[in-house]
């Protein structure tokens, strides 16, 4: 469905171009959850932004192809790209607060994709939006529809983002660190929701995260990235159980878990 071949991206902010992603390749199948793991500066977000055509003006794609259903998006016209965005591919971001427009009511933002890509009437759009908000497990959609983002909690905002991304039932949803800004309990709920959506609607999810624990539980396959280079990829089991590369091993051993501890505890009696 989606294939990226030898993608290289550089930033031209400084006199010396800065390669943020080099020779990146991957494929994605319908309905799967693919994890992209890496620390900051690994290029994982840049890859996603390139996919959506959201890179800054100072970034340049040096080489490579992004094939969607066999069609190269990097050579597609702006109009063709536009008809894909929000329709076939959608995206949610790390900060649900800033990713929603503060001066527009929530409902309007959820149904915006419908307004752009379909010729549905006002009532029909609203019905669909409410349905989607319900599917995103938002309480009281009818009331929330008229509220503004600042009146919602962090978890609810991210649900609104999810509803707005899924309203046209896209084939792929890119989720860029969607739970990093949230509390642990909320994070668990949002991840469960993503899993449910993937199962019920067969939406493929490109899940970008720094959190290996989450990737391990959520994804089918994963790619490990480090400083713009793909270190290792494979299905979750093999990647986590028998990592081949040093960096993957180092990353895995750094995750704080409850299997290890760093020191001997002192006990008070």
């Amino acid at each position, binding site marked *: 469905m989606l294939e990226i071949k030898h993608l290289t991206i550089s930033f031209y902010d400084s006199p010396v171009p800065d390669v943020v992603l080099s020779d990146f390749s991957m494929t994605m199948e319908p309905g799967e959850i693919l994890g992209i793991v890496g620390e900051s500066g690994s290029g994982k977000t840049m890859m996603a932004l390139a996919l*959506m055509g959201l890179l800054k003006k100072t970034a340049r794609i040096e080489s490579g192809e992004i094939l969607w259903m066999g069609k190269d998006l990097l050579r597609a016209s702006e109009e063709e790209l536009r008809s894909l965005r929000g*329709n076939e591919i959608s995206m949610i971001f790390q900060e649900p607060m800033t990713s*929603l427009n503060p001066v*527009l009511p929530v409902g309007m933002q959820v149904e915006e994709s419908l307004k752009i890509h379909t010729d549905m009437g006002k009532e029909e759009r609203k019905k669909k939006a409410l349905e989607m908000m319900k599917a995103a497990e938002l309480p009281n959609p009818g009331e929330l529809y008229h509220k503004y983002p600042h009146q919602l909690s962090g978890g609810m905002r991210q649900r609104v983002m999810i509803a707005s991304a899924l309203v046209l039932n896209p084939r792929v949803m890119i989720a860029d660190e969607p739970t990093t800004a949230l509390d642990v309990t909320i994070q668990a709920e949002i991840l469960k929701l993503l899993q449910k959506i993937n199962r019920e609607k067969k939406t493929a999810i490109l899940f970008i995260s720094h959190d290996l624990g989450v990737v391990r539980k959520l994804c089918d396959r994963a790619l490990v990235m480090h400083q713009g280079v793909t270190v290792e990829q494979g299905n979750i089991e093999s990647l986590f159980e028998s990592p081949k590369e040093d960096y993957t091993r180092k990353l895995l051993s750094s995750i704080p878990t409850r299997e290890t501890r760093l020191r001997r505890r002192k006990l008070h009696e």
Partner: protein
Amino acid sequence: MNIKYIAKKTGTLIITLLIVSFLSFLAFQIIPGDAALSKLGTAATAEKAEALRQEMGLNQPVLVRYGRWLADFVRGDMGTSYSYSMPVREMIGSKLPITLAITMISFLMILILSVPLGLLAGKHEGKSLDRALTVVNQIVMSVPGFFLGILITYLFGLVLKWFVPGGYISYTESFSGFLIYLIPPCIAIALPKCAMGVKMLRGSVIQELQSDYVRTAISRGCRENTVLYRHVLRNALIPVLTFWAMTIADIVAGSIIIEQVFTIPGLGTMLITSISNRDYPVVQCIIVLIAGLVVIVNFIVDLLYRRIDPRITGQ
């Protein structure tokens, strides 16, 4: 739905008006010299002055005098000019429309010019159009309004003879002639402010274009213009609103000088003459009026803010 909010804001407005008018009143009470003496001029003797002080109530406490003055002011009695011995209200009444007309025309010019230009420059940040606009802007911004007035008088009045410098036409004579005569002075006031407006809006648009919700909008498939008008514009206007409020106050202040350049007999001209003549009742009245205007404009902007930005709650 917002009646409570508006009532609260109106309450604040009235209190602010009271404070501002009291301060203006107070300012003219501490003037060196004595109102009675200045009114009597050379004919002053100690007894006459004392009698006049009694008559004018100058021996009473400040608050009492303020109360009396305020009551008179609200009833429309704004005192009597020292120099012309005529009611200030009559003197001001005929001048007020001139200044108001200048203010409104200039403000409209600023809005009409600066909003599209600011959006355009912001949208095309860094491209040659934006760069050219920025350079022109920076230069226009640096021209003092009254010097621009002089240049306009010279170029369009004296060289091109598009209008007659100093040929002011009163609105009682010919309203259209009056408006046409006001165009050059209004341009002189509006252009530098307009350049500032463009700069503000441009900066604001550029900043908003970098925000995350713009990314979201694009990821939903919005066209560039939809992003700009549906998403960015409203957010970008929020900081510019304050600038516009200050601009109205600035236009009024600017008109004081521009009236001199184009010899328009408006409030500004009267204010300057009265300051030179030490005609305090007139000065005080004009200052209070302008102060009131500023306060009311700020009040309206406050209400507008709430309409445009849902995050502001009525605390």
